[in-house]
């Protein structure tokens, strides 16, 4: 029964997804594009849940609903809306895209069928992760085990990517004419004034839960960082961003970004000093699994710090130099 439901919901969501993609291609107003993009993100997130990728869904939810949309909104401008509703794509684009698509469709006929368990994807590398991670790492969430330990170095790379993006945006928008902030945040709205102060602590609490519960359920440092960042962004959206700066100065936001990377990197250095390879957490404590626990905990905190502060930094940079205020 559940298989049928799974297949049905899968198909249904895929149809919704395709339609929203077509609408996106067709739509020519930036604001609508962004709205549809958010919708697209919701759908694909549901699909990830259907396909058992709960951690991915979590990330997509945090990113798609929280950060992406806000960033896009900071950048668009009402004047961008062009009169043209729909233009057929140019011949070059069509040919290139269709050729690529046809090549891919041609390739699909040798691909494993959806859900087939007897393919190399499911029989080679992953068996060790599923069978041994319980004893080797000792935490139930295999995604977290692989992410933070077996492939912990990729995750370091991921954090550095986030950090690089934060630094890049900082460089690009540092030379900004500071925006004349009108000072009237949304706080003037009485509903928001009442509701929001009660929700934001919840968001922050939830972020902490996601951060530390990541070993057992979906979530982890990245998701927690995004959620925390989203909470703080909400605060900033509600209030004047100058009030925001009273809470935490820009200088410290930047330091936080770098600090998380350092925490992660230094955990690796610590394991080198402990006699193991880089990021080999086993040497961090008496027993190997305790070491793994400790290492994963520490690096997840590093990830969380960097991501949260980067999200905040992105928002501050964009908000300061966004077009909508000039």
């Amino acid at each position: 029964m559940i298989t049928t439901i799974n297949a049905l919901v899968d198909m249904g969501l895929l149809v919704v997804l395709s339609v929203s993609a077509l609408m996106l291609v067709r739509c020519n107003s930036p604001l609508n594009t962004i709205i549809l993009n958010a919708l697209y993100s919701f759908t694909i997130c549901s699909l990830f849940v259907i396909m058992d990728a709960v951690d991915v869904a979590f990330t997509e939810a945090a990113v798609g609903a929280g950060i992406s949309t806000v960033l896009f909104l900071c950048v668009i401008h009402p004047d961008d809306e062009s009169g043209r509703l729909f233009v057929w794509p140019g011949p070059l684009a069509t040919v290139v895209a269709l050729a690529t698509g046809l090549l891919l469709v041609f390739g699909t006929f040798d691909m494993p069928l959806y859900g087939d368990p007897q393919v190399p994807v499911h029989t080679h590398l992953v068996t060790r992760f599923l069978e041994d991670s319980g004893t080797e790492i000792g935490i139930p969430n295999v995604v977290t085990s692989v992410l933070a330990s077996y492939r912990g170095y990729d995750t370091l790379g991921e954090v550095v990517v986030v950090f690089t993006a934060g630094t890049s945006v900082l460089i690009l928008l540092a030379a900004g004419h500071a925006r004349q902030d009108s000072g009237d945040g949304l706080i003037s709205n009485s509903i928001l004034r009442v509701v929001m102060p009660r929700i934001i602590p919840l968001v922050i609490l939830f972020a902490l839960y996601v951060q530390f519960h990541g070993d057992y359920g979906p979530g982890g440092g990245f998701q927690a960082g995004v959620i925390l960042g989203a909470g703080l962004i909400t605060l900033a959206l509600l209030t004047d961003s100058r009030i925001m700066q009273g809470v935490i100065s820009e200088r410290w936001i930047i330091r936080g970004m770098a600090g998380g990377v350092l925490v992660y990197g230094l955990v690796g250095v610590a394991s080198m000093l402990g006699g193991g390879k880089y990021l080999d957490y086993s040497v961090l404590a008496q027993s190997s699994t305790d070491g793994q626990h400790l290492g994963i905990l520490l690096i997840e905190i590093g990830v969380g710090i960097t991501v949260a502060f980067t999200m905040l930094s992105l928002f501050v940079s964009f908000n300061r130099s966004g077009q909508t205020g000039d």
Partner: protein
Amino acid sequence: MMAEWLYLPVFVLLLCAMACSLVRSGLGPTVFDRIVAINAFGTKTVLLIAVYVQASGHPEYVDIALLYALINYVGSLALVRYFGARRVRGHD
């Protein structure tokens, strides 16, 4: 269990509701229609995920739905903040 077959129409209905929101967000015609549509769609997503994790026997994954419920509004808030304060075009 008897609940199992009940899930089927629930999903079908949810998907239909999502499709309706989708259509509205595409048609507009005003920005507010779209904002409402996206909010409705987000709510349906929350529901779909919540129901699905229940159906698949892992109610602990309801976290994701919770997450959506908690930060769904950020986009809307930003929209209102940047576009609500000034005149939003009626038609686009």
